[in-house]
């Protein structure tokens, strides 16, 4: 009797929760769609950087978070996406190699190119584990940097090369102003919607992968490789496949970043970028899509915001007066925020919402990540 009552109460609670969640989603969607009409370019650009970072972070979270393969070479695949797009779409007008393909084909091919590069590396990725794989992927960064600086015809050398604007459905994502509801739409406003669509598609796809059979297989490989093999998971094939998929996510993030930057510069695709991506998934939450997005938003927005509001930060002195300079202060704060998240939210930012969702804490502590997507 009481059993039935409890069950119906629980189901009522659940519908309430789903409804509340749907409203939250609708509100969030409306806000995101409205942003280009109100925010100025700085905010849109910051948001676009965050979206691109989120796509890349979802990719590395599939690899490192869900499958347990440490990769330090994520920046290399981002560079392949960004430069691949420039080479394929460029018309050679600036004296650099350009194939002059339609830009949407170039963007697709650039993502494929990043996947191909990941595929070429996957025999190594299939053999190495843990820190060894980390070191091996580190080599990619050094090779990548060398090529970016020296293959002048392809990359434009140290000053980089211009990124051709994307054309899609008769729309050009560049500075040419289109006026929508009396608001001038430049590159940032138009790309905002492209970024939202891409991020949504990437997020849903990754969620599908993680929640389905492949996701369980990947988590099994991460938690116990031998056991996964014994229950029939083709370990080597899965590891290679995840590496390719993660590289393609990085490639897409690279294309989007290039479109936002409007110029690719080799300095950007260094080791710091790879480390930032690792920081994103650790801060956000390993192995989940929402964790990757939350971490990407925090890691890519925080430094920009701290720089912007550096004048208003406490304990900061004017440049040159001997105290802590605004730039330094923003770095300290960034470091402190990272440490605070790791210390007080060991499961990442997704734990904040997850903790509210699960009424019995403690049961989820063992298999911490994975299921919170």
């Amino acid at each position, binding site marked *: 009797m009481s059993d039935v009552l409890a069950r119906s109460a629980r189901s009522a609670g659940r519908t309430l929760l789903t409804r509340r969640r749907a409203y939250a989603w609708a509100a969030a969607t409306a806000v995101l769609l409205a942003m280009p009409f*109100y925010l100025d370019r700085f905010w849109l650009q910051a948001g676009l950087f965050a979206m691109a970072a989120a796509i890349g972070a979802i990719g590395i979270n599939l690899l490192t978070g869900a499958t347990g393969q440490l990769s330090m070479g994520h920046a290399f695949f981002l560079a392949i996406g960004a430069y691949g797009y420039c080479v394929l779409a460029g018309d050679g007008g600036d004296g650099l190699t350009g194939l002059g393909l339609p830009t949407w084909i170039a963007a697709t091919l650039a993502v494929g190119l990043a996947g191909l590069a990941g595929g070429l590396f996957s025999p190594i990725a299939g053999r190495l584990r843990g820190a060894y794989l980390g070191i091996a992927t580190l080599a990619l960064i050094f090779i990548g940097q060398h090529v970016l600086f020296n293959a002048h015809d392809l990359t434009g050398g140290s000053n*980089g090369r211009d990124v051709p604007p994307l054309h899609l459905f008769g729309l050009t994502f560049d500075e040419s102003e289109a006026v929508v509801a009396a608001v001038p739409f430049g590159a940032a406003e138009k790309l905002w919607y492209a970024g939202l669509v891409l991020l949504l598609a990437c997020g849903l796809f990754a969620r599908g992968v993680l929640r389905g059979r492949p996701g369980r297989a990947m988590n099994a490989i991460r938690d116990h490789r031998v056991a996964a093999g014994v229950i029939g998971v083709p370990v080597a094939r899965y590891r290679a496949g995840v590496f390719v998929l993660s590289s393609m996510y990085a490639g897409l993030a690279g294309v989007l970043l290039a479109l936002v930057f409007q110029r690719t*510069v*080799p300095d950007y695709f260094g080791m710091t970028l790879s480390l930032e991506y690792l920081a994103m998934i650790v801060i956000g939450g390993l192995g989940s899509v929402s964790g990757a997005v939350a971490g990407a938003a925090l890691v890519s927005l925080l430094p920009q915001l701290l720089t912007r509001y550096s004048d208003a930060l406490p304990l900061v002195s004017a*440049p040159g007066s001997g105290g802590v300079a605004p730039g330094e202060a923003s770095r300290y704060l960034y470091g402190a925020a990272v440490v605070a998240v790791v210390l007080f939210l060991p499961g990442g930012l997704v734990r904040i919402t997850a903790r509210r969702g699960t009424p019995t804490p403690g049961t989820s502590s063992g298999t911490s990540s994975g299921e919170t997507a």
Partner: protein
Amino acid sequence: MNTLTRATAAATALAALLALTACSSKAKDGDDGSKSAGGVKTGEGVSGKTINLGVLTDMTGVYATLGKSVTQAQQLYVDQTNADGGICGHKLKLTVRDHGYDPQKAVAAYTELEPKVLGFAQFIGSPFVAAVERRIEGDRGLVLPQAWSSNLLGNTYVRVIGSTYDLETINAIDFLMKEKGLKKGDKIGHVYFEGDYGESALKGSRHMAEEAGLTVVEQKIKPTDNDMTAQVSALKKAGVKGIVISAGPRQAASLVGVAAAGRFDVPVIGNNSAFAPQLLATQSGPALQKNYYVASPTLPIGADTEAAKKLVADYKKAHPKDSLDNGVVAGWTAAAVFGEALKKACADKDLTRAGVDKALLTIDAFDSGFGVPQDFTDPSSPSSRQSVILRPSAKATGGMKVVREPQAAKATEGYTAG
């Protein structure tokens, strides 16, 4: 939650959104932003009685020392100008953003400041200037980069102050040939950084080698290479009679020190970024004072001119603990150029971005007090082709003294970076 309510919610949201955009501050209202106060036309970046200038600097990254000196010198210029009553009755105000040599932060900072400022008195990092170059063309605000790469030439709104690295290198080799016994047929070593700075300088040495019949022995290094032993032995083996170094101060100190220790006694000359006064206190100090020269676009901070002495005194007063280096001169000169353009624009009653650009194009012999007249009439060439040759000296203010007054080598005439 069924599909119908969800669709309704979406439709409501969309309707609300379209209704609300009517009051968005971004909506165009037909005003192009230019206003007129007291007969002087003003536009973006001038609010009330303040002229806002942007500073995109690096105080936490690889160019931290340079960025600090340049910014402090520019702040000093602004403070003094404001104390004298400002320009056109307007006060100057610098808004400083430290990008820490990070492309994302640099582009974000440009995007943030661009709508609020008249122009940029400083922009460190030529890759980042290149990154926003197309937007600068559209925004039309004057940008004065703290970089001397020939790649930056040709844009009406990005103006390099002083000779670029390639011209400086030509002048440096000219000095070695005229005064240090280098002659036709000799080999000359060139140690340069991978990237913009080094490659720009290399263009200069290749041009000069062709003009003067020299052979260049190239040694490319990375900014992370600090030990020049391998390069010195390679150059010694090749039998070079002089060395040009287009790298950082650390590399120059290592090169000169290693060469001196190996009794490889050839003159070494560096670009202006290849020296810092702090080097004189290191073990390489004596060797640097004996065999090292530096080519610079202006007279050093310790120059014997009225303006230099005043700047040294004022800067020391404002920042007693900081060292005096060439960044102070570069920052001061850039701020003074911007100030001069503003004064001219004021005289023409046009303090808009277009007015400032027009005013700058009329400045043909501006001297900030450091010996080299700057000519801004042609956007496709740097504002000067002259270089000063300096040598390190522990006794001089700023650690440098002049050995050859400003002059342009014959080979710089008709040279354009290709």
